[in-house]
């Protein structure tokens, strides 16, 4: 394959992958929803969970996006410095989104700011979003794909605390979001928390936290403890499915962290909804691929 053919191939793969993740949830999310459905015992929770289950089954059978809000596409790429298509990647991801939009079909969710018109293609200035990490001494490429829906994007919040506020302040910051906007973001939620120096470093971490597999823990012991405490604490609020009340509120809480300036604690929270449409695909330099989030998919 020459380079042009390779780029076309990768575009096709990514369009098909985006199309797929809008219709079928990742394996870990399906398992978690099943588990929570089992554990809830009120008739209201049970009816909601069984509706979700029926919806996912119908979406697959009828080959339709499972939620009408197919979001704005976001990609987090961990690209090897010598991946052959590194220069083409950003452009071809945009093309893949346009392709998927007509093929799936996806909703047109890209409105140019200030000029305020819908592009009608689901892409625009800076959308889809591509977050870059360059991996030295590698010729492969890992891509996380995420559909950021409106309802679950709305609770997103970041701020810089004074160190005096401590991790107690971080706790309150996260918990307050749960009962204000979190409630309407289609629980059970996946909660991503970033702890760093400033708003943008914390915010990016809080989004990356949503890409981690469910049930994984931060490797720092205290951060892992915080994940567990927040998870139990938010569950104790009892938002239940759709925020209508129940025994649980979240599918998980993931904390990502970096070092910070001694005078600040940057903190951010991002939430994923029950319809957490994320995908993870790994390519080698010849575009052989492996999908970690969804079993039994051929692109």
């Amino acid at each position, binding site marked *: 394959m020459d380079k042009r053919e390779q780029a076309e191939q990768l575009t096709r793969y990514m369009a098909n992958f985006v199309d797929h993740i809008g219709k079928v949830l990742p394996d870990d999310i399906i398992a978690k929803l099943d588990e929570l459905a089992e554990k809830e015992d009120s008739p209201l929770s049970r009816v909601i969970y069984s509706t*979700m289950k029926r919806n996912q089954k119908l979406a697959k059978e009828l080959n339709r996006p499972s939620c009408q809000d197919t979001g704005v596409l976001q990609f987090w790429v961990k690209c090897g410095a010598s991946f052959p298509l590194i220069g083409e990647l950003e452009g071809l991801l945009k093309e893949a989104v346009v392709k998927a939009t007509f093929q799936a079909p996806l909703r047109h969710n890209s409105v140019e700011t200030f000029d305020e018109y819908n592009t009608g293609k689901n892409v625009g200035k800076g959308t889809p979003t591509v977050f870059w990490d360059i991996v030295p001494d590698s010729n492969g490429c890992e891509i996380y794909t995420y559909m950021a829906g409106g309802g679950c994007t709305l609770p997103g919040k970041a701020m810089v605390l004074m160190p005096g506020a401590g991790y107690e302040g971080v706790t309150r910051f996260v918990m307050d979001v749960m009962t204000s906007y979190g409630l309407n973001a289609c629980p059970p939620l996946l909660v991503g928390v970033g702890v760093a120096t400033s708003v943008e470093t914390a915010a990016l971490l809080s989004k990356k936290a949503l890409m981690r597999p469910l049930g994984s823990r931060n490797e720092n012991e205290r951060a892992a403890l*915080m994940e567990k*405490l927040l998870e139990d*604490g938010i569950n104790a609020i009892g938002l239940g499915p759709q925020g209508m009340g129940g025994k649980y509120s979240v599918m998980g809480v993931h904390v990502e962290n970096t070092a910070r300036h001694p005078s600040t604690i940057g903190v951010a929270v991002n939430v994923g*909804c029950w319809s957490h449409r994320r995908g993870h695909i790994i390519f080698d330099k010849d575009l052989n691929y492996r999908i970690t989030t969804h079993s039994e998919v051929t692109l």
Partner: protein
Amino acid sequence: MLEIKDGKKILTTPVSAEDLAEIRIGDIVYLNGSMTTCRDVAHRRLVEAGRKLPVDVRDAAIFHAGPIIRPLENDKFEMVSVGPTTSMRMEKFEKEFVEQTGVKVIIGKGGMGPNTEYACKNYKAIHCVFPAGNAVVAATEVEEIVDAQWRDLGMPETLWHCRVREFGPLIVSIDTEGRNLFEENKVIFNERKEKAIEEICKQVSFIK
């Protein structure tokens, strides 16, 4: 009409005040009959511009939603995907809307406020939530799109007049007594949150 079939509470349009009298917040109901999608601009046209709604929704249902529609032949349409949108955006208009149109069932996402509570109590209507994210279930419960009005508003805002069959589950969030499930839950959630914060804070004094 209200009937109970296999343990399911089913409302069939036309719905009367008596049908709704015993229904309470937290109940689950299903809808048969007439339901029209109706959101921001349609509310604004009726309430602010004083225009008459071109679909009769008296004793029937409206759905705060913007669907994906596939046009068929002979001016017919198919519902591909439909899900509720945030009802709170219509809160500002809902009192006048219910008063003027005589709608009995309002379906959407999330809670609504005092205007809608007033309307539900005084004009005998209910607000229900269709669990969001279940767009394929909702679309397949639409039997037919019988009419499309105000098409100049574009696909999401057009009044899509549908005939639905056991459309739901619909969770009653405001009843005809004006009780509001979301508001009552909020108080409980906030109490529990404060307790949870207190517990967590005992264990996270990492800055010494």
